[in-house]
């Protein structure tokens, strides 16, 4: 290594230093601390602090509320991400096919995306209002108990989430669509490909990688979803909309069981990491194949 290279290295370390330190202080340290907490019974305000080994995890294994929250998280994630992808792609194709007013459509889409989650949730709280809500007024006699019926509440929450986050998928796909050269479509037309064949053989495969990325982001967000159900239902009715993060919040911040709540958080963290790892592998495999 020459002197210049060594100097450049030192400079690089100094430049990277704050980031590494900040990441270490803000991510690694709390992460390890939470893991350590999850092996304890710790409720500081009642002076409870003792090592408990896997006691919290053993309780989670038989805790019906935990499994219900896990199931809700899974259904919410699958449901909202699937709908977002289908509607997002459809919206992107629709805007792409539009001759005029693309900017207006895009701005409207972005409006929903730019809205803070809590504001969006409040909006849907009014839409779902049992008597005065727009939806039930439109349904007239067939009014639905949106947020109070255990079989409807989770779909209602998913719908509200899809409305807010679908634009994210749509914008990403739209950007990719703009980048597909026109001659690809011309060539398809010359070869006699119909609209359906063009869509399934050309457009969708070309959207594949960006979609995978969108799905990765959205899945990780959906697994950690909190605000929308917290505002809309508080986890009810009968806990049917309580996700793992809402459960963790209740344990950690409401009932102050730092040990038990940390165990729930560790499970969420492990889940998110596993999913991220699987997606990243898929993405990498895609890169090699392409």
């Amino acid at each position, binding site marked *: 290594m020459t002197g210049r290279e060594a100097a450049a290295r030192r400079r690089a370390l*100094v*430049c990277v230093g*704050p980031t590494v330190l900040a990441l270490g202080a803000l991510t690694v340290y709390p992460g390890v601390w939470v893991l350590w907490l999850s092996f304890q019974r710790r409720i500081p*305000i009642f002076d409870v602090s003792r090592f408990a080994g896997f006691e919290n995890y053993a309780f989670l294994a038989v805790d019906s509320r935990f499994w219900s929250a896990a199931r809700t998280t899974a259904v919410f994630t699958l449901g909202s991400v699937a709908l977002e992808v289908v509607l997002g792609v459809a919206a992107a194709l629709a805007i792409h096919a539009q001759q005029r007013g693309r900017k207006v459509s895009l701005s409207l889409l972005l409006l929903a995306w730019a809205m803070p989650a809590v504001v969006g949730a409040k909006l849907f709280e009014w839409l779902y209002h049992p008597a005065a809500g727009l939806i039930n007024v439109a349904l007239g006699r067939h009014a639905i108990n949106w947020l*109070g019926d255990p079989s409807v509440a989770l779909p209602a929450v998913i719908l509200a989430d899809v409305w807010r986050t679908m634009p994210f998928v749509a914008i990403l796909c739209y950007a990719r669509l703009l980048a597909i050269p026109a001659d690809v479509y011309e060539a398809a037309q010359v070869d006699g490909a119909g609209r359906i064949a063009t869509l399934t053989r050309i457009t969708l495969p070309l959207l594949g990688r960006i979609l995978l990325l969108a799905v990765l982001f959205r899945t990780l967000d959906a697994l950690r979803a909190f605000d929308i159900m917290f505002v809309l*239902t508080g986890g009810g009715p*009968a806990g049917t909309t309580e996700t793992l993060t809402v459960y963790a919040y209740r344990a950690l*911040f409401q009932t102050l069981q730092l040990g038990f709540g940390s165990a729930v958080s560790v499970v969420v963290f492990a889940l998110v990491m596993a999913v991220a790892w699987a997606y990243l592998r898929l993405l990498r495999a895609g890169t090699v194949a392409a």
Partner: protein
Amino acid sequence: MTARLRRSAWPLVLTVWLLAFGGCAAGPERGPVTLVFKYARILGNADPLPELLRAFEAAHPGVRVKGEALPWASDDQHQFYVINLEGRSPGFDVMMLDCIWVPEFARAGWLLDLTSHLQPDELAPYFPSAVASATYGGRVWALPWNFNVGLLYYRADLLAKYGLRPPETYEELVEQVRRVRAGERDPALDGYVWQGKQYEGLVVNVLEAFWANGARLLAEDGTVFPEPARAADALRFLRGLIETGVSPAWTTAADEELSRRAFGDGHAIFLRNWPYAMDLFEGKGSAVRGKVAFAPLPGRARGEPGAGSTGGAHLGVSSRSRHPDLAMALARHLTSESAQRAIALGAALSPARQALYRDAELVRSHPAMPRLQALALAGRPRPVTPYYLLLSATVQPEFSAALVGVKPPERAIADAGTRLAYFLRAVR
């Protein structure tokens, strides 16, 4: 070119370092004594608090009082206090407390024990239920500030039309709903609306149903659900109200405001709610103005007389306050009779001092106050325990499950009991 870039990059790096690790130093406190009072701005348009704080400053030269706002939602306020008090940051002296937090904060050592600061009989003017919720382990930890009790609102015009008197039992209420609805033939008219959403309000409503049926959530000796069969029966009764259509299906998503609006728009005969709703029903432009009255919550035909759950806010002094005597004086000033009168006049909050319910000025603006006093006296506090939030958060989904009919009431009670046993074993 590169050299110039390299040189110009240093200030940037330095800035990042400063941003990351600067800004931690705080200046020392100087000048006159400053007391910080934490409260939620729940007092509506004519907030009398700034004036009350100025009056305290005028009476205590050299003391400045800063009123600082708490977050809006009760859960967020609790979280704010816990983080700051657990983190030992002495950011405030006097704090507004939801009455259900007092034993928890007292046990955690965050509240100054006020017992020795109190004159004998200083708490006598307050509602006994308010004093009970400010007391833990035989010591007093807070001064009652405003007071709430669950009431049964009814449409006096409709009941009079059918020659009915306000119901004393839930069975009578159900019968009256049937008669009025049969006569009115209005499909938009609901019977009895209350709070069945999965949140603290649900626990309050279920507790009232428990009490009417001779059941409790927590016994004095710490047993959870000491009368499980009666408790399950009370839950079954509430579920029955929804199943039979006496209460609308959306009761399972209703909070105070949702049910208050339905009743206030003239779409219900009976409503369970807090005293604040009366002012809104009597307000200008209200659809039910002059048609509403309130009565005690009903009992059960073969159970106990009904009792409303009590609530409200207390003022406590932080045990980390650097000026405990001044802070105590401020809490006393804000809970004084004249302060509580000003608050009751300026906002829809009921005072915790009984004498004010017969105060000429207040009765003129709120004619229902003398009646309210009798009902408030009969009110019962929610379990006074440091573990109240744990209790409440654990039973909420179980009660909700019984209400929406996905779990038999017996199982909901049993499941809640099992979970509570695990959590309470750790803290007791």
